[in-house]
């Protein structure tokens, strides 16, 4: 039983970490702000879930689990809102999205 729990939390932690690294690569490699937001925010939710779930399996049913659940809920609640606010602000301030090599100038023109 303990072995199964260990293996499961291993798998969850690795999955979470891999998602995190994927998102990180995305923020480095993607060409513009909006695509980078995509990379980091989409992976973020599942990354947090996997890692926290992996930890909960280890902690068992204790106060620690309750706190972990709070952290997860908090992250799930705030991080999409933060992303939303971020993209909205960037868009309102006129940060142009990257469309193709010569289309970004057109996009800016079209907007204003």
């Amino acid at each position, binding site marked *: 039983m303990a072995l199964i729990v260990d293996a499961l939390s291993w798998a969850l932690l690795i999955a979470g970490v891999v998602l995190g690294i994927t998102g*990180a690569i995305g923020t*480095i490699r993607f060409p513009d702000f909006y695509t980078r937001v995509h990379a980091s925010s989409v992976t973020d939710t599942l990354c947090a879930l996997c890692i926290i779930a992996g*930890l909960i399996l280890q902690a068992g049913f204790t106060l620690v689990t309750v706190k972990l659940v709070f952290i997860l809920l908090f992250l799930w609640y705030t*991080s999409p809102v933060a992303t939303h606010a971020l993209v909205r602000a960037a868009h309102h301030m006129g940060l142009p999205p990257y469309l193709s090599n010569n289309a970004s100038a057109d996009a800016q023109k079209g907007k204003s």
Partner: protein
Amino acid sequence: MMFGFSCLALLVVMGVALVRAFAGPSVYDRILAVNMFGTKTVLFLAVFGFFTGRPDFLDIALVYALINFIGVIAVLRFVESVTHTGTGAD
């Protein structure tokens, strides 16, 4: 072992986020990177508690999740009220 490995991997993610925060180019990229750095630090603190065998320090992770969120909102709000026009690039 498993926790130590995850800690290191999360540190790598944090480092990569920092690189984006240093590089910019726009102020929004930096906010994005700092936000990502913050959430990964929360996870790092959680895992690190298990790694050292004292997981009862999760309060700090919780506080930081909170502070990180309010920080991002604050930056956005003040960037908004300072730069009314322009691309926000520095």
